[in-house]
């Protein structure tokens, strides 16, 4: 596996907060779960209508998703298994490596 399979089960989740309350909830969750913010550049930019993509580890993704559901915040799973996506991105390389 590339990167020693360290991204197995990680997810990338998109949230577009519909109001300030949702934005605040997402900021707190992002801080507590130490997500890797793909966009915007930092947690301070998370605001109403700001497209927010977070990478979250397998364990934390269940916590994040259940919190979002409880808070009735809409989300979309952009990448459901990051390791597979990493392997797929450079398909030619991993097959080259295997060769």
């Amino acid at each position, binding site marked *: 596996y590339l990167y020693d399979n360290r991204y197995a089960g990680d997810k990338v989740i998109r949230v577009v907060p519909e109001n300030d309350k949702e934005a605040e909830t997402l900021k707190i969750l992002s801080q507590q779960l130490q997500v890797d913010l*793909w966009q915007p550049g930092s947690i301070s930019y998370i605001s109403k209508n700001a497209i927010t993509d977070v990478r979250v580890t397998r364990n934390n993704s269940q916590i994040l998703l259940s919190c979002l559901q409880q808070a009735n915040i809409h989300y979309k799973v*952009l*990448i459901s298994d990051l390791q597979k996506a990493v392997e797929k991105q450079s398909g030619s*390389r991993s097959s080259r490596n295997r060769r």
Partner: protein
Amino acid sequence: SLSGYSYEIYHSLEEIQNWMYHLNKTRSDLVHMFCVGKSYEGRPLFVLKLGKRSAGYKKAVWIDCGIHAREWIGPAFCQWFVKEALHTYQSDPAMRRMLNQLYFYIMPIFNVDGYHFSWTHDRFWRKTRSKNSRFHCHGVDANRNWKVNWCDEGASLHPCDDTYCGPFPESEPEVKAVAHFLRQHRKQMKAYLSFHAYAQMLLYPYSYKYAMIPNFSCVESAAFNAVNALQSVYGIRYQYGPASSTLYVSSGSSMDWAYKNGIPYAFAFELRDTGHFGFLLPETLIKPTCTETMLAVKNITMHLLKKC
């Protein structure tokens, strides 16, 4: 050999540096490689000077890719640009005019340590790899470390944050080296272009404040024509505008510094996509992304050669 080098896959730092050495050796008519300094971990910071050698004075365009390590499509575009320039210099009148009248300084990988780290340890690493004396965290955001409104809104003073501005402006050897080069060549530089991902945007100053730049109409029209040229290829829409209002406010950015340093046209491209793949843009999309971006960059360059 160069003919075996694929521009439609991502390459490691070593492969890209070997590619640069090869071009420097085999295409000395249009390419000259030089080093502007060393990275934090001691790697050379290579730049390709592209253009028909001229005894006379020529204006120049600076293009850098890979300020943020995980944004691999950036370095892929820098390589694509060089390939296209060399391959079409004879056949394309526009490209011939560009390389005859201008020099292009191309820095395929700005953040060499971070890029290497994103290949070997953490695919989603963003920052440089400098060590912090007080915290266990590594790295500074190389796009928050420039001496322009340094560490103001949109940057963090905490060393573990992704937008950490560093202990002081130009603390990062990579930033210091490029800033020094651009300062030295400030009179020659007509444009500064920096390639990032992902968001599909073409941004211009200011990042650090909501205000209009003095030459707004010229820059705006260049951006408008560039995104339309880009869209004409595959229909991909890029937003364009001042970074502060189009993306978000951020301080210490290279684009703002270049503009403040006297370069009249400063742009930051946020290449594909808008999040379906994010940083993991598949290699199958390198060609369309670079093809459309090539048109945008040629459009901007031709704008520079006209009077605005």
